[in-house]
């Protein structure tokens, strides 16, 4: 098989973004060399790959999103139209030749200093940008450390109450919750399957009060290894008012009230 044929076989995976670095580099070099057959095949492969978008389960964007986007677009359009009118008005005025000559002279005189100033401004802006990125990273690390301490405290404090959240299906793993009266609830689990059909897991607090509705709480899902480690910062102030914790599968983003039967339930008190 010729090198061209070997590279031609990579086109679909390239359009999909699945090639590893060495194959991607080889194919890009081949395309850059101007192979018309592969360029055409790539156009077709890009179209083909774009069709995979239709495999995504149907979902409807909110009306609020539409309103936000159209508001921004209309504001942009109005601004552009205003700018165009100003430019038109200015260009229609007669400007004397001597003024043009003066402006040209000033421009010539200031070209070097402008270029130099811009270069310095760019350097300063780059430094600011780097400093801001580093500060952001540091703040994130500090935040993560605070959260980790918070979680460790809940897990080790004798005031925390351990709650086993047992599956209704015995084949499923159980969840564990540690509820600290002041610090919140920390939920953990291992070997959890990923919810199907893009659903997420949602924690519910079942009140003791007769007739009271389940309180929606944290939305979460397992990581790629099936692990869960979720902090629930805002449970009810009094643990004794809660009868049980339950977990259901809900649509992306969670629900204000359960739309399915709990898959896990654990008594609190």
């Amino acid at each position, binding site marked *: 098989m010729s090198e061209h044929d070997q590279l031609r076989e990579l086109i679909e995976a390239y359009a999909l973004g699945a090639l590893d670095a060495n194959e991607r580099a080889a194919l890009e070099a081949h395309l850059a060399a101007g192979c018309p057959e592969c360029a055409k095949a790539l156009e077709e492969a890009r179209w083909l790959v774009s069709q995979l978008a239709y495999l995504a389960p149907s979902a409807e964007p909110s009306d609020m999103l539409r309103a936000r986007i159209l508001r921004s*677009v209309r504001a942009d359009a109005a601004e552009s139209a205003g700018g165009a009118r100003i430019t038109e008005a200015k260009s229609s005025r007669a400007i004397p030749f001597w003024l043009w000559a003066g402006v040209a002279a000033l421009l010539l005189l200031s070209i070097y200093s402008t270029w130099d100033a811009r270069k310095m401004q760019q350097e300063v802006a780059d430094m600011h940008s780097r400093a801001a990125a580093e500060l952001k990273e540091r703040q994130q690390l500090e935040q993560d450390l605070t959260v980790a301490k918070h979680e460790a405290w809940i897990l080790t404090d004798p005031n925390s109450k351990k709650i086993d959240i047992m599956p209704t299906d015995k084949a499923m793993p159980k969840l564990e919750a540690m509820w600290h009266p002041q610090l919140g609830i920390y939920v953990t689990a291992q070997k959890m399957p990923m919810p199907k059909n893009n659903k997420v897991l949602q924690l519910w607090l079942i009140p003791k009060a007769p007739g009271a509705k389940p309180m929606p709480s944290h939305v979460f899902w397992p990581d790629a290894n099936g692990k869960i480690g979720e902090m629930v910062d805002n449970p009810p102030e009094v643990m004794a008012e809660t009868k049980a914790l339950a977990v259901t599968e809900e649509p992306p983003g969670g629900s204000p009230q359960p739309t399915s039967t709990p898959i896990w339930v654990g008594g609190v008190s």
Partner: protein
Amino acid sequence: MFLAAITSKYGDGESSDPALVERFLRRDVSAFEELYDRHSRVVYALVVRILQQGATAEEVVQDVFLHLWRNAGQYQANRGPFVPWLLTLARNRALDHLRLKSERQRRREDQTEELPAIAQVPDYEKALDEKRRAERVRSLMGTLSAQQKKAIEMAYFEGLSHSEIAASLKEPLGTVKSWIRNGLLRLKEGLQTAS
């Protein structure tokens, strides 16, 4: 031939109205609005599927459509149909978002994001063309083996490479490459026949 067959039948990727795209390129707000109404569902569904999170998906979709409006010149009608271009833009933006943030950061942010209102009943009348198209692609994908489908979806929706997929599925690299290539060729053949 294949692309020509597809684009001649479906024109502007389901839009039988290239004039609409032309008006949009001339900065016509009403054309943009109509394009949004026609294609925001599939864009949103794609981004939700990639990010698995409705609130973040809305941010990315907003970013995609505002980018579309502010950089309309990036789209050149003579280089291909509009909708596949839009879907590619949306996929890239969503995958970039996925790669930029660590799992932990995302979880923290998700806790503080206000959940948006999401309509429960899809507007089937307006979504009809895209619904048919989705049915066709899903039906063709249904003819692939479970492994082929899984590998293609991991590459497309999760942005994983051949070797990452092989490691994740614990399968030989060559096997994964064959699954993906043969699966895509079968899909292509099916679309060509359907077109």
